[in-house]
């Protein structure tokens, strides 16, 4: 098993409040890793550090690739534009319209491809953001509670979609749901983040 990314003794605080305390982990390349932990234990902060949106106060992260794609906690879509255009924003012309349309159809968005994203439901917007992350040219895919707000049936089809598209890619998924974690990766690929004790 080759190690793609090594998180070494990383700490991060916001306004004096510690959210990550000397956290270490290794993410194997071309495999799915699931991060679990109680609310406020620093899961999203860890993803922001991996995305390069924050710098750690201490410690370091080695082996981070240049090309990263992500599903954020929020959809972060360009609301006046269509689902197709939102995916094209990150893929450029390297992925054809037909392929994007095929991916969107695969998770039940065939009828909403050209609709402005602002007219889609929360669950539909979530799925657009998932397709965007899976189709972008990346060496590391970070998913922050990607199935939040999806009903049971949709969640199953999206889980199947994510698993099939992530094959052979380095994927890191943050979730609270043990069933989702089980569906995505074997238990020995789970990282359980400890709760940060109050200062």
């Amino acid at each position, binding site marked *: 098993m080759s190690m793609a990314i090594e998180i070494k003794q990383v700490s991060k605080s916001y306004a004096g409040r510690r959210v990550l305390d000397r956290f270490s982990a290794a993410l194997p390349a071309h495999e799915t890793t699931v991060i679990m932990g109680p609310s406020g234990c620093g899961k999203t902060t860890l993803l922001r550090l991996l*995305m*390069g*949106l924050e710098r750690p106060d201490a410690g370091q992260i080695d082996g981070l690739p*240049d*090309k*990263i*794609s*992500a599903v*954020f906690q*929020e959809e*972060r879509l*360009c*609301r*006046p*534009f*269509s689902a197709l*255009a939102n995916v094209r*924003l*990150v893929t*450029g012309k390297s992925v054809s319209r037909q392929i994007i349309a095929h991916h969107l159809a695969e998770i039940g968005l065939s009828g909403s491809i050209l609709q*402005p994203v602002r007219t889609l439901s929360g669950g539909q917007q979530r799925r657009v953001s998932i397709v*965007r992350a899976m189709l*972008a040219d990346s060496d590391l895919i970070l998913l922050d509670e990607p199935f939040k707000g999806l009903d049971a049936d949709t969640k199953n089809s999206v889980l199947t979609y994510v698993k099939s598209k992530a094959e052979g890619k380095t994927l890191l998924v943050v979730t609270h749901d043990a069933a989702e974690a089980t569906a995505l990766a074997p238990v020995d690929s789970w990282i359980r983040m400890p709760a940060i004790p109050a200062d």
Partner: protein
Amino acid sequence: MTAYGKLPPWTKLLSVLLALLVWQLAAWLVQSHLLLVSPWTALVRLVILSGQGSFWLAVFHSLGRILLGFALALVTGICLAVFSARWPLMDVLLWPYMAAIKATPVASFIILCLIWLDSRSLSVFISFLMVLPIIYTSVLQGIRSTDVQLLEMAQVFRVNRWRRLCYIYLPQLRPFLVSSCTVATGLAWKAGIAAEVIGIPAGTIGERLYQAKIYLDTGDLFAWTIVVVGLSIVVDKAIVHGLDRLFACMESR
């Protein structure tokens, strides 16, 4: 009234008719063509004037100059706002100029600029000067209120600058740009025509207004004022419609 509390469009037409009625009543009470002509008299003068070639030449000269000033201010204002958003020091350096332009009476600028510029360029420059701070301030505010979460998304996905502009910045700037253009067109017309009335360049609306004042021709004064108000409304609607079409076209890709 609609569900959103907006009145239907025909109520605007009704308000115009009501205003004309008030004007007619006032003219009837004043009973002096020198002080206040009736809407009918003004309309008759307008019809007579519009039959003359010089009327259309004056309209096109003034329209061209004021639009040129507006367009230059739009481009300059957007460029300066982009630079100021990128380098905040630039906003600080520009602040005294923008504050002075906003606060100084337009007549002061016109008289001062008349010393430096020829009367034909005056309305271009004055329109430019009056529109610039409105566009600059509004666009800068729009850029600064751009959704940080979308910018982070673009950073993570390494979205290039051109796409960031088209997908993130421009859609967020849309309401700022539309509202500032609406305010600025009215101001450009007011200031531009004022510059023409003081500078009196030949063959312009300002010159015709000045002549109407000299010869106490209140009918012509009102007719030309109607022309200015009409042009200002048409230009405003055209710009807003053009911007709406541009954004709609961009978003439908």
